[in-house]
């Protein structure tokens, strides 16, 4: 059969993407010191063989800075997306399991968070935590859980009234076994997919908030900081300061988005023929 087996290629892609992202993260950590080295003898170099992404006005290697920034972005993204997904899981399950005023309160809260433009909410949260690393992490983590919480709430609500669960209860299957056998297998794929799909948003918002000056401090080689600094030098023609770090960020986010998309396809058998 000449047709390429889609599932196999999906798994292959997942492996490659994860390895690539892991490599960037590790390389960034290793290059953290190199990213901070200033050398005025080599300042403002356009991209060349020694410095693939060029150097900035302090002679710092933009390639090292970009990698270090990406690594930082990925790590902050993992942390915030993880917290966000956990918040979503807890609130979604609570909301559906208890119903009544708990549900009303959580639903109202979700509406509240969704009603404030995301970036403003992250700014407010970050200010409340005194900006910096804590500010960004709290800001992004506490503003991205809403849609996943809604999904989980809906899923649990649906499962609660599913005939086979009611039947299991009548058959005397214990509460824990019902949760383990019937609830978790349904929730886990939703949760995992939701978690991975959170990464791109988390990374983008971290970069955005840092770019605006409410996030990671300017000593950090964060992508937001790099791009914010590049603005001052754009008009003098130093295009490489903005182009490469931004493009690299887009690449990382695209990889995460594709990863999420593929995992969703893999976990949802109905879409196998897409």
């Amino acid at each position, binding site marked *: *059969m000449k*047709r390429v*087996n889609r*599932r*196999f290629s999906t798994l292959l892609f997942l492996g490659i993407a994860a390895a690539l992202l892991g490599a960037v993260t590790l390389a960034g950590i290793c290059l953290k010191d190199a990213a901070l080295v200033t050398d005025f003898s080599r300042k403002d170099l356009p991209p060349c063989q020694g410095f693939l992404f060029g150097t900035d006005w302090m002679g710092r290697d933009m390639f090292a800075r970009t990698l270090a920034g990406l690594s930082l972005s990925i790590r902050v993204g993992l942390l915030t997306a993880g917290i966000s997904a956990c918040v979503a899981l807890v609130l979604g399950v609570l909301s559906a399991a208890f119903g009544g005023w708990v549900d009303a309160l959580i639903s109202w809260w979700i509406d509240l968070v969704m009603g404030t433009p995301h970036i403003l909410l992250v700014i407010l949260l970050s200010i409340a935590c005194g900006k910096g690393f804590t500010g960004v992490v709290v800001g992004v983590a506490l503003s991205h859980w809403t849609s996943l919480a809604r999904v989980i709430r809906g899923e649990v609500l649906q499962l609660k009234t599913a005939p086979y669960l009611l039947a299991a209860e009548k058959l005397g299957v214990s509460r824990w076994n019902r949760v383990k056998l019937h609830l978790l297998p349904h929730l886990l794929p939703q949760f995992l997919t939701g978690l991975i799909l959170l990464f791109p948003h988390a990374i983008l918002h971290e970069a955005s908030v840092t770019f605006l000056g409410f996030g990671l401090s300017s000593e950090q080689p964060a992508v937001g900081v790099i791009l914010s600094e590049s603005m001052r030098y754009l008009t003098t023609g130093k295009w490489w300061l903005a182009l490469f770090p931004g493009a690299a960020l887009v690449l990382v986010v695209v990889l995460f988005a594709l990863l999420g998309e593929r995992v969703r396809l893999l976990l949802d*058998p109905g879409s*196998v*023929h897409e």
Partner: protein
Amino acid sequence: MEPILEIQHLSISFHQYEKGFVQRELPVIRDLSLTLEPGEVTGVLGVSGSGKSLLAHALLDLLPYNSRREGTILFQGEPLTSQRIRKLRGKEIVLVPQGVTYLDPLMKVGPQLRKGRRDRGAREKVRSALARYGLKEAAADLYPFQLSGGMARRVLMASAVMDSPRLVIADEPTPGLDAKAASRLLGHFRELAAEGAAVLFITHDLELALAVAHRVAVFYAGETVEIARASDFPEGRLRHPFTQALWDALPQGAFRAIPGAQPYSGEVKEGCPFLARCPHPGNGCGQGELSLVPWNEGMVRCLYPHGEVMA
């Protein structure tokens, strides 16, 4: 008279993923042969999942992209290719579907039947088609959700007869109708046949099929196991044990059900798919492919029709 439709050895299969990385071809209809004469209503009888709706879709070139069609279909003596179907469907070959979900929920009945034409001729055609089924002109100005079940069915009938069709395919057109409305609808199909069209009436309900059809083709696990005249049923001239079992399950018959369930067509490996439930299996039933053969003025796919050994 020349038959309107001749289906010869039609097979339809799907390309599918099994567990893990295994892909396979899943046959849904196997070796189907059927001839439709003008003036005749032919019932196609099968449980849900036996692939009978796919037959309708194949005749209208509406099969999903991951399916494959084999065999020959002749319409008025000429091969029915995809290109030809696209020219004929909606005019000479028409579909009467199940119910109101087959109408665009956001479009009024009139514009929907006119297929985008606005001229006076089209309006007049819609008016007369609706009038034929007792619907007033005002019905053209209603949205589908405002139609009752019976009205929706009559609108669907009207949509089919806009350009006097030669082949009418009805796919389970009666569910949800009360007995009176259903029998009126069946009358409409016989009326179309009397005007010279061939009607293919797909259903899972034997009583319904016997009430409307002149001949009945019975599906079992993707295969036609028997083609019988409607009169063969009460007269005890059935050929295949499955058809007999269907008749026996009716109150008019012995009112007795047989045990077991129909296999999916993908599960049938070799031999007769009915073997496991057959009351009188014999030598050779478990091997090879059985073919549909003439027997006693009908067709049957069985080595021992009516319990006798085939000559």
